[in-house]
């Protein structure tokens, strides 16, 4: 079952786990952007979530409490962004960039003294016996609960945005905030809640890196995952299932290039390391090109602050 030293079953199982952080962060950001807000602080919220989750998990000994802590930390940081952009009407791009820088610095400060500690192990959801089934076992049943949670959240986000009134209101606010206001919807309040949801999702994604992927605390642990999440949201045309596809593509190539490196491929390491970023963007650009800008589905009010005049 090996092709040039690479086992496809392990590859698929690996990509599902690898892509969890960017998938969660990108789903959150997709909702934020659908409501008309461009939050470029995903990287900052992820790393603060990574630290928050790590600290809570280490002190409580419970990975679940850790993920909850990551969500709270991410949402708390996003509140700064929400206050600045929704209340004080600060520029969203500048505020988002500042949020990332702030999050990186804050996590670096708060993470001192946590180097070299091992967090509690996040267990698999299903009995081990199922995971031992050949082929299907590792792919379908061998994961920890966060992997299933991320897929569930993809479905939930898709369903809520497409079929529920809440989703309709979120899309309406992102499409034309003046009209939404005229109809009596509280534009800034709805956006604030969406921003907090985005922060919480980024926080959980970050916590997955420090609690499961690495798993320990290192400075700058997210290593640009937040930026990839942002890119995936745009190229996925703000649609949850495409976000999943983009995240898995990125995760897949990441795992593949690591395996190729381990297998001693003739391709230089530098090219392999850049491959996930390059290929994900190329594929997503091709997916989203060739159709008019309108059908791309960019929310029309994206990045614009709303102020109810009179």
């Amino acid at each position, binding site marked *: 079952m090996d092709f040039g030293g690479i086992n496809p079953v392990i590859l698929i199982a690996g990509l599902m786990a690898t892509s969890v952080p960017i998938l969660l962060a990108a789903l959150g950001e997709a909702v934020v952007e659908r409501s008309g807000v461009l939050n470029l602080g995903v990287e900052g919220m992820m790393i603060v979530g990574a630290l928050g989750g790590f600290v809570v998990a280490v002190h409580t000994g419970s990975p679940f409490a850790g993920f909850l802590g990551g969500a709270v930390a991410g949402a708390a940081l996003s509140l700064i962004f929400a206050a600045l952009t929704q209340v004080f009407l600060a520029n969203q791009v500048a505020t988002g960039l500042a949020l990332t820088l702030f999050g990186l610095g804050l996590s670096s400060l708060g993470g001192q003294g946590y180097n070299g500690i091992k967090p509690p192990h996040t267990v698999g959801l299903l009995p081990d016996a199922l995971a031992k089934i050949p082929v299907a076992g590792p792919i379908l049943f061998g994961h920890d609960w966060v992997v299933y949670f991320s897929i569930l959240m993809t479905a939930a986000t898709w369903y809520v945005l497409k079929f529920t*009134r809440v989703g309709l209101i979120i899309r309406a606010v992102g499409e034309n905030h003046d009209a939404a206001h005229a109809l009596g919807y509280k534009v800034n309040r709805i956006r604030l809640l969406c921003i907090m949801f985005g922060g919480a999702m980024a926080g959980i994604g970050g916590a997955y890196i420090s609690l499961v992927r690495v798993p320990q605390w290192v400075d700058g642990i997210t290593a640009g995952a937040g930026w990839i999440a942002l890119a995936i949201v745009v190229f996925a045309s703000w649609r949850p299932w495409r976000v999943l596809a983009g995240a898995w593509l990125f995760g897949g190539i990441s795992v593949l290039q690591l395996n190729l490196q381990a297998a001693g491929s003739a391709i230089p390491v530098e090219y392999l390391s850049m491959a996930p970023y390059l290929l994900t963007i190329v594929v997503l650009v091709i997916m989203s090109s060739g159709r008019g800008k309108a059908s791309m589905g960019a929310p029309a009010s994206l990045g614009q602050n709303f102020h109810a005049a*009179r």
Partner: protein
Amino acid sequence: MTGTGTEKGGGAGRPELLKISGVTKAYPGVIANSDVGFTVGEGEVHALLGENGAGKSTLVKMIYGLVRPDSGSMTFRGQPYQPAKPAEARRLGVAMVFQHFSLFEALNVAENVALGMESPPPMRELASRIRAVSEEYGLPLDPARMVGDLSAGERQRVEIIRCLLQDPKLLIMDEPTSVLTPQEVEILFKTLRQLSSEGTAILYISHKLEEIKALCDEATILRRGKVVGTCTPRERTAREMAELMVGTTLTPPERHPVDKGEVALGVSDLSVASPIPFGTSLKNVSFTVAKGEVLGIAGVAGNGQDELLLALSGELRVEPDRLRIASHAAGDLGPVERRKAGLVSAPEDRYGHAAAPDMSLIENAFLTGAIRRGLVNRGFIDWGKTRAFAEEVIAEYDVRTPGPEVAARALSGGNLQKFLMGRELNQSPSVIVINQPTWGVDAAAAAAIRQAILDRAAEGAAVVVISQDLDELLEVSDNFAVLNEGRLTKPVPVQGLTMDQIGLMMGGAHGMEVAHHAE
């Protein structure tokens, strides 16, 4: 016209539906409504007349729950009425169709309707109810279509149907006919009369006095936030009502007949793909405008008006020979070079296209006036001259603003429009291209803008006016053409043109012999 009291009885002994008395609303620096009172009876079509800034919008926003009055009382169906939010107003039976449509282009008709309802039924049921209501009132509409693909008239139907589904007792309509063809206006009026006969009262805001005469039972006239009179529109002439509204005597624009000079702007066989999402591409557009001539281009919104303006202003470049300014090929010139050549243009969208909303009036004056008014001195902005230019426009066009350093966004739509028109018209242009010169501008200011356009023409400028206001086009134009799905009909002289002929030209397919001119 029966005096200026704060309360006037509803018309013709109808039972009272809405009564407003002593309502006052002040904003910092301006009193929007002062001691306003009137009564609307059940099933009555009540007109609210007034200039820009007279306080009509604030008043209806209070009735719809978007704004809270400082003092005064409202009663609705005999109960004290003070809605805290639009949802409450809708629940009590007040619905509103907005001047700038409150629609979402990327959502479909049914979703748009659902957003305006309190507890909408499931989508499938809603779609069938939309079909039922649209048939009952003669407003055909497909619930599954994207609003971005609809014409202005169809978009308005979405808003009206959204209101009707909630079975309102009072329907507020803010400037509903500004974007409709004469035929669409007829359909709308039929619907409104049907609603009125079924007992739904309608509060109708418009500048178009002829429409108010044709449709409304009673009228309340506002000036500077106060009620200055009430009248029965059928018994008054449009002129009388306009003068009551403005407070001065109106003079229709004067025309000075001029000899037509040589061709100043020539467009031949121009085809351009639209750069706008959901836009309309231009197809084989040809026309010429001579010095001193005004060409009026009519058409329902979304038939290529924006694209035509972009192509004429230079924002959209074309092959050099397609467009000639004073017989020089200019199709490949950008907006700045075309301004140098004498062509000035004013797009329709004021906030963001014609003006930079967050910049001051001085800065906005500089943005297009820099070249023709010589506001640049050795590469630096001459702020003294720029301020003088802005102040000149403000004074000459009666722009109401605290001063020229105010941000453009802070001006009301009509006031900003006056400023932007003045900015272009005072650059001694040889060719003027304007899209919607008086959209949302009050009667007195509109008359002033039209007069200024005619004055420039009399001085020898060639003018292209693109507008959806037919009365305006008939008033200012020498020749008349219609844009229909990106095609321009052959320009014909305005003199002797009847409304029926215009309707046929606008109808496109129904008027093949007019719409499709020979090679």
